[in-house]
């Protein structure tokens, strides 16, 4: 048997760079987006490379990966790459192959787009497909939203700037949705249900108690066995206790659902990066198509597209018009849930007399 190899790290990326990339590495001059989903980069040498970007559902079967490998052999000398938002890119040196590749991708069901002022793929988490703490499915919501927003993926002239959507199926945010133009975040709304039988077997009671950021968990004896109890009014459903103790599940089909946040960005271009802020505290889980969520997201996109100025991201637009106007234009209800009551809540109050007075 061969010697067991460990700590070898990933294969070196140079093994996978197309010749045109190797040759012009660090010597790129400029790029254009001649049409949605196609970038053309020009190097100092005069070489050009056409990148064709196609959507994937992130969850990819080996059948699809092999099909991508075949397309890469046919069109891009066997090379391909993925983007940070789960799109696949084929890098071509022959412009005449762009159209046939796009046609093949479309035929296989992987549309081309997601460049410039568009809505590209939604970064997301595992949801019911593979996660233990999810308050919703992830892939199903993403698929439903993108079906509806598809025209924005395939175009670059419908929006003032790019619009990034992210989805996370619980507050752990494996998909780090806290800085997106629109964040769709599944939430629990009920304190953990304690499995008292399992508690002493699978959890450390002191670390379970100390895991709670609001001090809502205290020790208790239940049926003669050591366990814990939760002060329900103090629970903010963060599920940190569940992360350290499997006997504290928060999953609940009746009360789990989805919240929507807006105005985050993480690029430093123009304004500093911003967090997303609460727009809609709760919408129900309604599989398989989540119509309430899809409609809310679509509505937000449309209001933004109608009112924002060129190059303004969602958050920059809202900063210009102000939150009162945002709630007015979107028709969303402003509630006490929108007002922060966590650690630095006071910093979010409007401590000024600056108010736009308008008739809605």
């Amino acid at each position: 048997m061969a010697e067991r190899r460990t700590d070898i790290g990933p294969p070196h990326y140079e093994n996978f760079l197309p010749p045109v990339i190797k040759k012009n590495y660090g010597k790129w001059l400029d790029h254009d987006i001649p049409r949605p989903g196609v970038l053309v980069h020009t190097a100092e040498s005069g070489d050009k490379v056409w990148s064709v970007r196609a959507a994937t559902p992130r969850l990819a079967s080996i059948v699809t990966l092999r099909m991508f490998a075949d397309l890469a052999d046919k069109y891009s000398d066997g090379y391909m790459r993925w983007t940070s938002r789960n799109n696949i890119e084929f890098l071509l040196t022959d412009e005449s192959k762009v159209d046939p590749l796009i046609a093949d991708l479309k035929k296989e069901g992987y549309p081309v787009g997601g460049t410039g002022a568009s809505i590209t793929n939604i970064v997301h988490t595992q949801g019911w497909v593979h996660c233990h703490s999810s308050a919703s499915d992830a892939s199903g919501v993403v698929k439903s939203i993108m079906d509806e927003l598809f025209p924005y993926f395939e175009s670059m002239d419908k929006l003032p700037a790019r619009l990034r959507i992210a989805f996370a199926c619980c507050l752990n945010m494996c998909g780090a949705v806290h800085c997106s133009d629109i964040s769709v975040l599944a939430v629990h709304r009920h304190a953990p249900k304690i499995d008292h039988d399992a508690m002493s077997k699978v959890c450390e009671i002191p670390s379970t108690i100390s895991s709670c950021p609001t001090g809502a968990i205290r020790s208790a004896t239940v049926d003669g066995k050591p366990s814990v109890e939760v002060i329900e009014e103090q629970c903010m459903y963060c599920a940190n206790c569940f992360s350290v103790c499997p006997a504290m599940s928060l999953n609940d089909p009746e009360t789990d659902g989805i919240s929507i946040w807006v105005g985050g960005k993480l690029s430093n271009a123009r304004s500093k990066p911003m967090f997303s802020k609460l727009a809609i505290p709760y919408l129900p889980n309604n599989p398989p198509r989540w119509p309430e969520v899809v409609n809310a997201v679509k509505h937000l996109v449309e209001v933004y597209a109608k009112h924002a100025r060129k190059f303004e991201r969602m958050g920059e637009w809202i900063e210009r018009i102000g939150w009162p106007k945002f709630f007015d234009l979107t028709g969303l209800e402003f509630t006490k849930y929108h007002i922060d009551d966590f650690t630095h809540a006071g910093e979010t109050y409007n401590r000024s007399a600056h108010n736009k007075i308008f008739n809605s």
Partner: protein
Amino acid sequence: MTEKRQTPKLDELTKGPWPSFVTEMKKVQDNPMVNDLLGQLERSYNEKIGHWKHGGIVGVMGYGGGVIGRYNDLPDDFPECNEFHTIRVNQPAGWFYDSKTIRKICDIWEKRGSGLTNFHGSTGDMVLLGTRTKELEPLFSDLTSIDFDLGGSGSDVRTPSCCNGKARCEWACYDTMKICHEVTMHFQDELHRPAFPYKWKFKFSGCANDCVASIARSDCAVIGTWKDEIKIDQKALQEHYVNGGGVDIARDVVNRCPSRCMSWDGTKLEIANEDCVKCMHCINVLHKALRPGDERGAAILIGGKAPIIGGALLAFTLIPFIDIENSLEDIYEVVEEIWDLWGEYGKNRERIGEFIQRIGLGNFLEQVGLEPAPEMISHPRTNPYIFFELDGEE
């Protein structure tokens, strides 16, 4: 094989123009694990609740990271996916592959698991979704035989990731792929053998556009920037952006500059570079005429994270500029100082951003041997509660 699971709810999601994850699963439904996974997921769609249990001790020999144990809570109904562990495989920097390698991965995964993957997971790994405990060692051996290794999980260095940088971007201010690869190789032990209070993520972006979201999603973000002047090609500016080009230079560029360092008189663009904050907006828009300067490097930012548990944080500037490609050893030194301090005093599940807020940035800097600098803050303190240290004062 057993009967094909019927999935009327999920079938709804095979319709529509966006590529469907259900279609992906159906493509490999002949695999009994996937057949049961489809059945289980349909059940979740009917019951509005997930059916996965919490963790479990599984892994490959010697490593504490890279495998996420996953079991369902319906072993009688869906026995084939009762064990359905996730494998994180460290992706090549910049997510470049060739077809030969993709096919080898597919062949291995067809033999050893469900045939379902994520290209890629949120942190950047290639994710192999669903296999049994007994397959883990053989799978690891198969992967290393084609020069792949596992990624991070748990309280360790998580798999670093980067934008494609100099490979295909004219704005890359340093070689992100090279630095990402070198850092990954340097910290192999820390990546595979968890020894921290909690996770530590590195992300590398070539410029302030930050295509890998490093400022929001990593404990240590390395973001490309430059020191000298933005290069202006006035001729190209005239050619491409005056009288056409779809850009109003005054409105779309000058007025949107966050540091108000630009002026435009209709023929000539001027930049007061000493006021420029390197945000990238003008370069993004006037890309045929403007380029980052020549003296390029990176800023190091620390402490970004999602909300659990003390609230979400964006990373803050620790080092405003460093010639990163020639200073990696210095970076390793600083990072290891930080890890030692965090290891000594950090609480379980406390990320570095939260730790620094708890002990105070001033104390943190003193402990890791860095000088305070005004670039680290948005403004000095507004409260008068200063902990004066009179020892050593005249």
